[in-house]
């Protein structure tokens, strides 16, 4: 059993699941109907991607693991999602900015991962990339619209950058399992995609008339199970049913 491959697959799955969950919190609360539908659709894409990764992780783990046991019965310290996905949604500026930062990262990540020597990871990445491409387009339009919009929207975007920029550095600090999978081209070298990501962010920020903050402290730990206080609340909500009524099905 390849522990690093399982951990890596779970890291990708957890990031997609938690992001999907946060986005789904907007369902019924979006600023206008069309955007409510947009963010809910994006949530659905993320949860679909998470399912594909969990199904693969379950097949690698054996021991009766299923996509459901992995999503519903692991605890906070087992989750390996990026911290940026678990921080609260904030306002629409914070949500769309986070979407842009995460989707751009995933865009370059999956672009590489589709050539993975692991066939299943490659297939999931190629499939997800098409959806992520669309998310990048939607979210960068919002960042530009808000940044280059009114005084109020500009201020809100600046505040959002202030709130979440510290969480972006973690994307490019490889965990041990990422490093191990780099050596045989199963995973992606996150250090190599950092300049591509930064270039994209710079381009969109310039159009949004805002700038990238100076080098800052990097909040990290998510990849190895050290989380913010928010993840526990997310899991409590997400996992309640399965824990209260084990094995409940639709």
């Amino acid at each position: 059993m390849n522990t690093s491959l399982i951990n890596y697959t779970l890291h990708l799955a957890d990031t997609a699941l938690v992001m999907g969950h946060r986005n789904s919190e907007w369902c019924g609360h979006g600023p206008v109907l069309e955007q409510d539908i947009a963010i809910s659709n994006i949530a659905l894409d993320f949860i679909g991607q998470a399912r594909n990764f969990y199904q693969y992780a379950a097949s690698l783990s054996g021991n009766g693991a299923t996509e459901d046991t992995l999503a519903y019965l692991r605890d906070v310290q087992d989750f390996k999602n990026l911290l940026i996905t678990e921080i609260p949604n904030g306002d629409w500026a914070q949500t769309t900015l986070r979407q842009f930062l995460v989707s751009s990262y995933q865009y370059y990540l999956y672009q590489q991962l589709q050539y993975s020597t692991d066939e299943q990871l490659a297939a999931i990445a190629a499939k997800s990339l098409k959806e992520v491409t669309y998310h990048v387009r939607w979210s960068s339009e919002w960042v530009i619209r808000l940044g280059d919009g009114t005084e109020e929207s500009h201020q809100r975007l600046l505040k959002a950058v202030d709130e979440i920029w510290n969480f972006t550095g973690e994307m490019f600090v490889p965990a041990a399992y990422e490093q191990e999978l780099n050596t045989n081209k199963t995973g992606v070298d996150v250090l190599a995609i950092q300049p591509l990501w930064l270039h994209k962010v710079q381009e969109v920020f310039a159009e949004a008339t805002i700038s990238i903050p100076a080098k800052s402290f990097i909040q990290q730990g998510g990849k190895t199970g050290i989380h913010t206080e928010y993840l526990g609340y997310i899991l409590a909500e997400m996992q309640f049913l399965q824990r209260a009524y084990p094995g409940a099905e639709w």
Partner: protein
Amino acid sequence: MTILTDHIKEVKHKIWSLLETVNDPEVPVLSVIDLGIIRDVQIEQSGATGYKPIISITPTYSGCPAMDVISMQIRMVLLEAGFTTIEIKQVLSPAWTTEWMSAEGKDKLKAYGIAPPQYKQAVCTPDAFQAEEAIQCPQCNSWNTTMVSQFGSTACKALYKCEDCKEPFDYFKCH
């Protein structure tokens, strides 16, 4: 041996025509074949006289909620036709594209009021504020249409409106 091969061919043919009767629950005018999500049909011998169909399907979108319903419906149709062992496999690669939709399916979509995907959709890139493709209104055939929202009523569609007949309509997202 040739008799057996011929027979398997016949069974395959029958399965393909059965699949034609399974529709997408979200776009009910399209069969799963029109939609291009049936990737392969294989037949294995099962027991002394039976056959086991192995159907490979691919999702349009990773999170498409119709996939579970579609798998169930395929199973039902095959069970009703007398197949007792059935395998439905989900394949992800190569990833579904709107280009796999049949010409017949595109016509049915338009008649249903959904603008069918163009041949070679042009705007599948991450760049913001791209010039939109000209999409024809499925109601009045006007090209004077605009996008209302990049996302629509299902994962695979975007929302448009016609500036001439003023009708809103769905269009398949570039994918």
